[in-house]
């Protein structure tokens, strides 16, 4: 048996601007083409060379529609990863497997959205698959569902409000240096955070992710090929996907544990197969549909515990360049913008290359966690050549 560790790398990144949701002049397919073409140019590859396509969730810009615009010679591999934002790092795993088994050579991993030509993300991603138990009882949005988990995290497990505020503030602090960030003008001081409007207890506005039109793509090739391309490769060390027993689509009946991200088993598998642990990580892009779920992800990954979360999760510890665990260095889902979390993968790659606008000096191990609390999720670790 062979492992994906270091066998493939991200070699190209492409990203359109983030538009306010519902304002893109172009449909998602055009934005998607722009991102994939930009990723190709970034890598020094011809878009015609892309023969694999992997996305996740409710993506509609499928290979079949893209190929005429890309000049695709032949689609040799295509796959969609279950099921929402939990799918992102897992999509890398699928891309790596396709390349290692000779099914494809250049795989685009991407996501595109344009609500001006569609519907609200929270409706779109539900894929008409929201159980009656929720809708009958006034619950429809991920924010409301995750609010139930946040109450447990805070009231039962004792994670303080200051921790939620700190992760939001770290995101907005980083956004200020990022010209792409939609939230870069917002100075999220304590007063602004504390006075923001309630959405669903305990969440206030600044506890929630954004929602934007835009597209983002990365290109994955074999480690061998990556060495001869334009950019410093970000090697894929591990990107496991899955759901623990006792979890799944259980309408708030997760049993093994409830208030965090459902990522304990994923993280353990990632640490085991990569050979690294939480202490080794230089920088982390933590998916935040809502901030408390990102805290849950950090707890599940072993960066902190219920007991010391309040002490560990401070603005100082969470910000680049010298915090103990700089997170969401582009501003992330809360402050940069939200194309269903895909921007996090671009930023995780930039940190390995050394060209983030909030660079962690010498970053060699760069983590991206997938959608926390999703019924199926994934997590991924990228590394510089020295980490192989």
């Amino acid at each position: 048996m062979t492992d994906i560790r270091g066998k493939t790398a991200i070699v190209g990144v492409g990203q359109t601007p983030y538009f306010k949701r519902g304002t893109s002049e172009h449909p998602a397919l055009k934005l998607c083409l722009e991102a994939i073409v930009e990723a190709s140019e970034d890598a020094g590859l011809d878009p015609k060379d892309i023969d694999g396509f992997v996305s996740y969730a409710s993506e509609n810009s499928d290979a079949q529609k893209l190929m005429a615009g890309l000049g695709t010679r032949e689609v040799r591999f295509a796959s969609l990863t279950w099921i929402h934002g939990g799918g992102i790092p897992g999509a890398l795993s699928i891309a790596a497997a396709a390349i290692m088994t000779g099914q494809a050579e250049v795989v685009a991993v991407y996501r595109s959205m344009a609500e001006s030509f569609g519907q609200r993300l929270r409706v779109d991603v539900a894929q008409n698959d929201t159980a009656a138990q929720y809708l009958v009882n006034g619950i429809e949005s991920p924010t409301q569902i995750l609010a139930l988990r946040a109450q447990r995290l805070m009231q039962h497990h004792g994670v303080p409000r200051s921790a939620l505020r700190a992760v939001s503030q770290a995101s907005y602090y980083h956004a200020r240096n990022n010209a792409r960030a939609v939230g870069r003008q917002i100075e999220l001081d304590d007063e602004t955070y504390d006075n923001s409007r309630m959405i669903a207890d305990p969440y206030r506005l600044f506890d929630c992710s954004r929602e934007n039109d835009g597209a983002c793509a990365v290109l994955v090739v074999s480690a061998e090929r990556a060495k001869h391309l334009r950019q410093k490769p970000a090697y894929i060390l591990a990107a496991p996907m899955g759901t623990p027993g006792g979890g799944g689509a259980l309408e708030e009946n997760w049993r093994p544990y409830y208030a965090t991200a459902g990522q304990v088993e994923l993280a353990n598998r990632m640490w085991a197969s990569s050979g690294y642990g939480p202490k080794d990580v230089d920088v982390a892009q933590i998916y935040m549909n809502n901030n408390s779920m990102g805290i849950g992800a950090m707890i599940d990954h072993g960066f902190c515990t219920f007991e010391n979360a309040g002490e560990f999760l401070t603005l100082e510890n969470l910000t680049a360049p010298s915090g103990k665990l700089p997170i969401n260095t582009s501003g992330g889902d809360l402050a940069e913008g939200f194309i269903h979390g895909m921007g996090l993968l671009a930023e995780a790659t930039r940190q390995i290359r050394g060209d983030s606008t909030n660079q962690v000096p010498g970053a060699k191990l760069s983590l991206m966690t997938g959608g926390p609390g999703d019924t199926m999720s994934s997590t991924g670790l990228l590394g510089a050549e020295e980490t192989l």
Partner: protein
Amino acid sequence: MEYSFEAHKIIGGIGADDEYWRSLENNEFRLPQCAKCGKWTWPAHFRCGDCGSWDFNWVKLEPEGNIFSWTRSWYAFDRVRERTEDIPYITVLTEIPEADNARILGVLKGDDTGIQIGLPVRGSIEPPSEKTKFYPSITWEIIR
């Protein structure tokens, strides 16, 4: 009898809980227990993953339990706009001790003062209405 929820069927989730809604429309609260090994499976499923049985008994229970979690919604979310005039409203996730702590969602009614995790609640069965998308429902009330 023709059931309201069947005429307004919501497609989504596992889809094995018709008997739950049917029971509520009959003014009864029932949850599924494996006919062979006795394991409670919630949300309802088609097969007991523990023993492999395909048969469940829908056991009549008292709608009583404890608050496992709750949220108060302050915004008219897209697919639950029927509740706009009730904002802010509270939805409670209640553990049912009699059914191995299966967790059942329901809107809170009555006095919400001092609501917190762990408080005991009692459920009332409500007939189908526009607010509940023409499904029957349970509303929870804090036992004081």
